[in-house]
């Protein structure tokens, strides 16, 4: 253990960058862009190192909350400034911090106006996200959860494309509607439990079943929108399409995981009984999400929309694994989230590469890029295969486990989700084919140069991660297994009769 409040450090460190930018970077765009980028980049790199240090001091064998910081805040209502991480949230802190430098780098070519403000938004967003993942108090968590909304809204609304206003409002309205219900739910929960301390509430979920079900629905509204689950997903394609590359990366890489994280913490940990009651409902939505959005992805002509829809399908595997309610499924869901962070971020970065060169997202405007961008073609192929879930890539481990978890819950869930394996390959390979193969038709697309050094620096760590997670996921699993074990045990205490993996096996006669 350490005496440094490391969680607060990793949360607020990006604000130091904001302060520096405010203090030292002033003037016209041409003069401020460079220094602002540099300060943001250095800040994010240092913060990434801090997060790795956090990872280092984290004890994986301990399933409880660690590195806890607790300061009384409003004594009267039992509200405290309470932070801590366990084997679930430490991962989300890590990915938030590690993605940030990559986002800044990608914004070097993508963002050309109001760079200084963009970097500020990016840094503030990082603080909000990490704050949310480390908060253990309902009020604190809600503040950060809402705080994320603002910089993201701005990123889409200011630095977005043609339809940015519509997209920004759609994003805002959807998530805000969810947030209102979340706030209501939190208030009821706090009043009923007499505290806003999540660790206390988790141990003692003594909530009448009727009330729990209402609370569950209120929370679900917030997190289903964030995840997003079908049919609350329609904001995502628009948000992605209009967002600048860095915004898409954060959106797909981290923001969506706030939904998955919320479902784990609020639904399954705080309201296990109600979660079980609604689990089949969620499984149905998950399966619909996987099949429906995969089919929709098949029909897309817009590069970013296609990948956005594929994100919804992949998040379907997350909810599928989670609400299968057994250890295999929950581990799978965590792996899908980690893998999706890497892969979808990488795919959006890949889109950014060609968008920066040709300024169009229309797939038909590309084609035969394997001719003039062979290195880019290889990189894109790696992420395509990871998205398709080819064994040996990060995508496989998670999808395999979450589908297996679902199968153990009931074979029909595994079978229906398995259809996504076919459809997922269909839309990704179709995309790849239209982008990279075929006759060369467009002279301007054929004139695009291959990856630059900066782009290499962005992609190589992501490729390494995809392969590492795919070939040797053991160490990652060790970091979260003890927490997930107690997570699932806690959940299953409230699940009386339903089959778990082991029981299902015992059920064979």
């Amino acid at each position: 253990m350490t005496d440094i409040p490391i969680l607060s450090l990793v949360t607020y460190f990006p604000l130091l960058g904001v302060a520096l930018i405010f203090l030292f970077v002033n003037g016209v765009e041409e003069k401020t862009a460079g220094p602002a980028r540099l300060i943001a980049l250095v800040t994010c790199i240092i913060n990434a190192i801090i997060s790795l240090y956090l990872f280092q001091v984290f004890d994986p064998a301990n399933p409880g909350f660690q590195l806890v910081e607790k300061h009384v805040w409003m004594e009267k209502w039992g509200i405290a400034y309470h932070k801590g991480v366990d084997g679930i949230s430490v991962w989300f802190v890590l990915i938030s911090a590690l993605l940030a430098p990559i986002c800044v780098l990608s914004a070097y070519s993508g963002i050309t106006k109001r760079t200084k403000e963009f970097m500020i938004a990016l840094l503030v967003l990082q603080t909000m996200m990490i704050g949310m993942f480390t908060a253990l108090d309902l009020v604190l968590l809600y503040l950060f959860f809402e705080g994320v909304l603002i910089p993201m809204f701005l990123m889409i609304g200011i630095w977005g494309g043609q339809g940015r206003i519509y997209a920004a409002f759609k994003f805002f309205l959807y998530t805000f509607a969810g947030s209102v219900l979340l706030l209501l739910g939190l208030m009821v929960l706090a009043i009923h439990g007499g505290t806003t301390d999540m660790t206390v509430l988790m141990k003692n979920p003594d909530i009448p079943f009727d009330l729990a079900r209402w609370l569950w629905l209120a929370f679900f509204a917030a997190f289903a929108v964030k995840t997003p689950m079908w049919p609350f997903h329609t904001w995502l394609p628009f948000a992605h399409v209009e967002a600048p590359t860095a915004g898409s990366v954060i959106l797909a890489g981290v923001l969506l995981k706030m939904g998955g994280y919320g479902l784990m913490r609020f639904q399954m940990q705080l309201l296990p009984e109600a979660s079980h009651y609604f689990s089949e409902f969620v499984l149905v939505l998950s399966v619909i999400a996987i099949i429906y959005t995969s089919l929709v992805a098949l029909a897309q002509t817009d590069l970013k929309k296609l990948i956005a829809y594929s994100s919804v399908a992949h998040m379907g595997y997350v909810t599928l694994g989670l609400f299968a309610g057994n250890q295999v499924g929950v581990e799978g869901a965590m792996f899908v989230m980690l893998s999706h962070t890497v892969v979808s971020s990488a795919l959006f970065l890949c889109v950014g590469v060609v968008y920066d060169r040709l300024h169009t997202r229309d797939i038909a405007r590309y084609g035969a890029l394997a001719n003039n961008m062979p290195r880019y073609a290889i990189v894109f192929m790696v992420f395509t295969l990871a998205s398709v879930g080819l064994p040996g890539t990060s995508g496989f481990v998670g999808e395999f486990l979450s589908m297996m978890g679902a199968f153990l819950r009931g074979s029909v869930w595994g079978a229906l989700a398995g259809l996504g394996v076919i459809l997922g390959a269909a839309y990704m390979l179709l995309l790849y084919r239209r982008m990279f193969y075929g006759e060369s038709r467009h002279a301007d697309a054929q004139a695009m140069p291959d990856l630059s050094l900066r782009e290499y620096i962005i992609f190589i760590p992501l490729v390494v991660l995809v392969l590492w997670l795919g070939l040797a996921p053991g160490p990652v699993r060790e970091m979260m297994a003890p927490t997930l074990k107690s997570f699932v045990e806690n959940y299953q205490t409230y699940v009386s009769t339903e089959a778990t993996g082991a029981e299902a096996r015992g059920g064979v006669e």
Partner: protein
Amino acid sequence: MLSVPDILAVFSPLLMAAVVGLGNRHVGDKAAQVLTCAGMVVALLASVFLFYDVAVLGHVRTMVLAPWVITEGMQVNWALRFDTLTVVMLLVVNGVSTMVHFYSCGYMSHDKSIPRFMAYLSLFTFFMLMLVTADNLLQLFFGWEGVGLASYLLINFWYHKESANDASMKAFLVNRVGDFGFLLGIFACFQLFGSIQFADIFAGAAQLADARFDFLGMELPALTTTCLLLFIGAMGKSAQLGLHTWLPDAMEGPTPVSALIHAATMVTAGVFMVARLSPMFEFAPFALQVVTIVGALTAIVAATIGMTQFDIKRVIAYSTMSQLGYMFFALGVSAYSAGIFHLMTHAFFKALLFLGAGSVIHALDGQQDMRYMGGIWRKIPATYVMMWVGSLALAGVGIPGLFGMAGFYSKDIILEAAFAHHTWFGTMAFWLGIVCAYLTALYSWRLLIMTFHGTPRMDHHTLEHAHESPWSMLGPLLPLAAGALLAGYVGYEFFVGHWRAEFWGEAIKVIDGQDAIENAHHVPTWVKWLPLVAALSGIATAYLFYERKPEWPAKVAKGAGVVYTLFFNKYYFDQIYAAVFVRPAQFLGRFFWHTGDGKLIDAFGPDGVAGAVVRVAKKIGPLQTGYVYHYAFVMVLGVALLLTWFSVRG
């Protein structure tokens, strides 16, 4: 314990694929060829050693390399398992692959992407080796998907061709349908056995023979269901009826690819899988029955289509599919070793035929249509002889009790085993197999005669330039031809004869009393002679129809009318699938997008509200100037200040 040959046999192709693939242009064409070929030679030598060590000396072993996927109650390792089944496959894979590597140096010499091609070939070989050395279902699946990927990349090697794009996607997607079954089979195994290690599955299968479980709401026999799910995977990879449509199209790839992947190795992965899982399939008799029927139907359907096609490579592709059908019905009647025996001999003669066809295509400047060939045997005599050897082996010509070509031994033991199974489906497979033997000879000699004999039908220019292939291409044909001549004669006693029990050891399991191979040795004499008679009549028919009376085939085709149309159009599988699966999927995609997302979800959801807000906002103030952004920064600052204030006060 790490042993050097074990590692080299599997990983040297990967190493070379990585070096050449990543180095690509820096490595250069010549070095790419030398490196990948050297990698293959090393792997081949190592597997010869392993064959001796494992199959002859009996040193069966499993080497665990590293942990892979771990979850509650399951640990799957990267491992290399060597038993007789594996080392036979190692020899076949590394042997054919080495020859194909050498051949490619000549065949692809004018291509501009030689390093990429060689790297893909080596990468494919690596995945195939991982597949055959797996000690659990998941690593098998890893290799399975890996060879699928390599196949996709190689079919699409000439990626500027739209037809190659189509074919490669089709191959990947049809295989994914099979993989869907395979995955469910793995899940079912885990549910049944609590493990997906082969050792655990084999140990537990007998006790679970009568188990039932709930599958999709139905109460089904557990083992049979699991086996059938896994078999769906095998059907996809091995192009069995229903999931076969990708294989003929896969001929879009360069010819060495067709020889290696779509004839000798990858497509036999399904056969390998069922043989590997024989200790499980043995306790699922209904699953075996399905395997037999599917195999027999595939054999006959493919042979009838192959008879009517004009593209030289497609004829051989349908022939491959038909021969795979033979292997499957051998598995289905519990004659696993006969199936693997045919797999091995088929690898030799089919690779020989494909590479020979490649030599013909090379000589005729890319022409693949047999209607524009003919009369060139004097120009390319060496290729001609090789094609004869391959065809004789494929048709299974030989003299019982004395000597025969490779296919003579392996096909006959399959037919005898089917006959000796004494079940209705075994007998059905036998008779369909006999008809197929006739058709096999017929289409093989049709191919030989149309390609090499009669009057030349290509244009003057092509005929003049027709030339024998260089030795870099003919050389690799020699070992394959030797295999086509001798593999059956040499292998017979080991694979299916006197020494089979010692040879296979524990690698293949057959329940007592179901040993079809044993019974096969006691069938009536006419059963032993019938396949040969069928083959010779097929050759005679082809000679009559295509050499003596070349006007007859068209007449017969006309007379057969609907039947011929059905064969020629490949039973309309592609058209039916397009109408039933492909177009509805595209329609649903658009429908869900426009109507589902657009008209339903958004209309009830945010659009009305958002639209209203935007309209109002536009009236209130200029959104795109700084106002919103200033306002928003005030919000951000506000939140930050609020936080600070609360923290300080706390």
